[in-house]
């Protein structure tokens, strides 16, 4: 029998319940609600398959978002010929304000890198160092992508105080 070296890893069931929501939120913003569910399945299936090989149990979060990031990009690539990203999440229209719809139109206008970086920062709550790791880039480039993305979003109507 092989000697196992993953004694510190949490059971995968806990990974799903702990990060399922954040990954879903990231994917809705990154690829749109239509494709988010499929991407979520892809992400967690790939994660489950590779899970025993995770070396650092402390880094499961950024490891998981690296997979989600890749799946989001794959999804964009697969659908490049049909619809560009333009899917606004479903929501109760009674509650939707002008600012709500504006922000999604603006998110749709971001470049893929900016959008993913902004989503990692504000939805997944990753640090710039983690974003750099997930996006295979430098921390400086990660900051720049978030900043450029934010600059576009700042064109949204002023938030009500």
């Amino acid at each position, binding site marked *: 029998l092989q000697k*196992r070296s*993953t*004694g*510190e*890893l*949490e*059971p*995968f*069931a*806990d990974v*799903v319940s702990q990060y*399922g*929501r*954040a990954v*879903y*939120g*990231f994917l*809705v*913003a990154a690829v749109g*609600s239509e494709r988010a*569910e499929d991407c*979520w*399945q892809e992400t*967690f*299936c790939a994660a*489950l*398959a590779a*899970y*025993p090989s995770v070396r650092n149990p402390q880094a499961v979060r950024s490891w998981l978002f690296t997979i989600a990031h890749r799946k989001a990009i794959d999804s964009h690539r697969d659908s490049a010929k049909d619809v560009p990203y333009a899917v606004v*999440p*479903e*929501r109760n229209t009674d509650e939707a304000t002008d*600012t*709500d719809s504006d*922000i*999604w139109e603006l*998110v749709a206008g971001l470049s893929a890198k900016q959008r993913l970086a*902004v*989503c990692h*920062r*504000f*939805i997944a709550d990753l640090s710039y160092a983690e974003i750099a790791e997930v996006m295979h880039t430098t921390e400086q480039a990660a900051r720049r992508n978030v*900043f450029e993305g*934010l*600059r576009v*979003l*700042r064109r*949204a109507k*002023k*938030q009500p105080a």
Partner: protein
Amino acid sequence: VSREITGADTARGELLRSQSVASYDGAEERLFQKLCDRATAEDLIDVAVARTDSPVGELMLAATPRGLVRVAYDLSSFDEVLRELSSSVSPRVLEAPKRLDAVRRQFDDYFHKRRSHFDLALDWQLTRGFYRSVLEATARIEYGHTASYREVASAAGSAKAVRAAGSALASNPLAIVVPCHRVLRTGGGLGGYAGGLDRKAYLLRLEAGE
């Protein structure tokens, strides 16, 4: 324009976050179900777990591809059991109730007195050495019968190791299926039970037809 993240940016980020996760609650059950089905189809689950209700409280059942590996009472918390399975069997632990349907049916039948013998493949990997011998000897005690600690120690190959036999039974990873509740003190005293003496007494009464 400042490169600093402002309060308004944070508010926008919060808006983005709350809207993008808004439909998660409605989708969660479906997502988990699909993941479980697909992971089963692709053979990605090393330890499938499910919960089942019983007259002795909720039970957690866990199976590997080899067979049933763990039956746990809801004593401390099932999270603890999951962690234990994760570190001792594999971290690829996922709730997969369908994979345990047959097992759950047998438990149901047992508690309704429609079944006196579990007909299940068992994965013994959580126990080894003398402990395993004791539990295998215990598995041979028939429904409605009992044995003494000394008898199971002896059947496991060491009549003198009565105390170790007691420890082996206390560590039984397969409660009920490996019927350690059928082991009593010489003279008929209940002895001990990891699940609590109330449960032991209940199972013995059930099997005695009382």
